[in-house]
């Protein structure tokens, strides 16, 4: 026989019983009531759930680092922490070059996940990553100048769209960063290409080629001469977007420069050069264009988070309606191996990190987000968002999808390959 609803003990009494705070007689009554009344049994089950849940939730609070001020009772303290941290960090850590490295790491990681699905030359890329790429591959890979306004508009829809945007928006943002010196290439760049035929040394981008690019872009009226001058290293990145098709369409003068550049490059130098120049180039290029591609044209499909120490990177990918994520640790330290991050992933990401001189990053890097968007005819752009000096900043770039053999693309696919090992084949 069920007990009438109004005779059932209230929730407080149930918790008191579950907490063992009732006397023996009342407890016995409750036990019998559970057997008699399904409704009461359900209430007890619900209360048990709340008891267990609250214990579980509270246990998460035990993993608390020291020196964290409570928000609820010291609302001003939070501001104080930020102010002090900000004041401590700003003067000694920020350089554009470091930001460039950080941004490039994230750009590469996110872009790799896109490129993998879109590029048919995965086998070739694997070969390149494994260090088995042929000399001829690298000759094609060697970054040089190949952009031309005509060929770009013929072969690359995004470039055409970009040009249209630039034309409509006027001069690009004046926030283009001054060109930092090229990042040093540690010897640790070797692991990405395990067996180079010759010692890897960074090679500067051919100045003559940059001049050609500058002239071409200036003729097209896309950017100011000052911006071109400040971003001369970016030319390799511009080239990387259109290298293969644009090379064929490039003027003879440019092709000759490109060939000469490739001939000068020793075996394996392609990767090394990309490591030394591409991070800087990518960031400068994207900064230059950040204001021009500010529109959100498509839903984001990826997100990258960087921990405060920038030693972890987490990529989230929406696939088949499900959110998948993987986390890896960057840096030289022996990262712990988990079920989700294989040693191969760590090895490659560590090599990538080393190659981009991530060790020189500032100790605290604000939260970064990265989003992938589709622009027009299915060409993705990347948008990196981060916070610096209390302001939200963003850089946007078109990827280098048209140059699948470019070292940076190879490197990106190495990351994607590592991600695939975790996530499984797309």
């Amino acid at each position, binding site marked *: 026989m069920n007990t009438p609803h109004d005779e059932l003990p*209230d*929730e*407080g009494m*149930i*918790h*008191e019983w579950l*907490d063992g*705070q009732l006397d023996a007689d009342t407890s016995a009554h409750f036990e019998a009531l559970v057997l008699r009344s399904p409704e009461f049994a359900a209430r007890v089950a619900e*209360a048990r*759930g*709340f008891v267990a*849940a*609250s*214990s579980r*939730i*509270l246990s*998460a*609070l*035990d*993993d*608390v*680092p*020291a*020196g*964290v*001020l*409570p*928000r*609820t*009772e*010291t609302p*001003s*303290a939070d501001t*104080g*922490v930020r102010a*002090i*941290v900000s004041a401590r960090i700003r003067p000694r850590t920020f350089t554009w070059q470091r930001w460039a490295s950080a941004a490039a790491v994230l750009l590469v990681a996110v872009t790799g996940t896109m490129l993998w699905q879109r590029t048919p030359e995965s086998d070739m890329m694997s070969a390149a990553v494994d260090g088995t790429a042929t000399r001829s591959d690298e000759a094609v890979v060697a970054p040089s100048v190949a952009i031309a306004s005509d060929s770009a508009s013929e072969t690359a829809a995004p470039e055409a769209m970009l040009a249209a945007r630039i034309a409509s928006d006027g001069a690009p943002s004046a926030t283009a960063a001054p060109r930092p010196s090229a990042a040093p290439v540690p010897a640790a760049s070797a692991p990405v290409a395990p067996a180079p035929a010759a010692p890897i040394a960074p090679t500067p981008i051919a100045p003559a080629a940059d001049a050609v690019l500058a002239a071409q872009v200036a003729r097209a009226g896309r950017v100011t001469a000052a911006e071109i001058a400040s971003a001369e290293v970016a030319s390799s990145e511009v080239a990387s977007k259109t290298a293969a098709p644009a090379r064929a369409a490039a003027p003879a003068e440019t092709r000759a420069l490109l060939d000469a550049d490739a001939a000068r490059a020793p075996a394996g130098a392609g990767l090394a050069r990309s490591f030394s120049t591409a991070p800087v180039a990518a960031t400068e290029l994207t900064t230059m264009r950040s204001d021009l591609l500010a529109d959100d044209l498509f*839903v*984001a499909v990826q*997100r990258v*988070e960087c*921990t405060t*120490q920038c*030693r972890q990177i*987490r990529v*989230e*990918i*929406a696939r088949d309606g499900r*959110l998948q994520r993987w*986390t*890896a*640790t960057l840096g030289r*330290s022996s*990262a*712990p191996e*988990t079920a*989700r*991050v294989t040693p191969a992933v760590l090895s490659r990401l560590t090599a990538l990190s080393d190659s981009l001189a991530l060790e020189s990053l500032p100790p*605290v890097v604000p939260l970064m987000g990265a*989003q992938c968007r589709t622009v027009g005819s299915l060409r993705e752009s990347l948008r990196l968002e981060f916070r610096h000096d209390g302001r939200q900043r963003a850089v946007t770039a078109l990827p280098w999808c048209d140059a699948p053999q470019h070292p940076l693309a190879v490197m990106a696919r190495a990351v994607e390959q590592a991600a695939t090992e975790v996530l499984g084949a797309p």
Partner: protein
Amino acid sequence: MDDVDRLFRLYHEPLVRYLTRRLGDRDWAEEIAQETFLRALRQESLTSERSWLFAVATNLVRDDARKSQRQRARLALLAAEERDRVVEPEVTALERAESRAMARQAIDALAEKDRLALLMREEGLDYDEIAAALDIARSSVGTTLSRARRRLAEHYDALERRDEGRDHVAG
């Protein structure tokens, strides 16, 4: 009070855990616990020692929260130094940080009395002790705890759903 060693052995760990959960700062929790035991040392006798300790610690937290901005700034500076120095090595740190932040948000959303009662109960205080420590009727402890647990779980669940929804939107 010459029995402070026994008190310390019995109650230091649960008291620090209670305070850590309450404050979100282990250093601060240790300081408050230390001060609590110092005050216990000055007492001639304690009739209900556990509830006394938790009640004093709770009051010290309230008093400490009113202290000068300068002291907090000093703590903040120490915190900043610590954050600069420490490198989190574990790959699960992000997930743990998320859970911790949501738990903190959920517990902060509770009414003060509910939160304290729940934290004390989690440290094993019985209903009489909780009633004494919080100066509330013993008969209301069950109701207070049931409300606190329900709201904590519901709030945490809502935060989780919101987080998942944001992830999916972002994805």
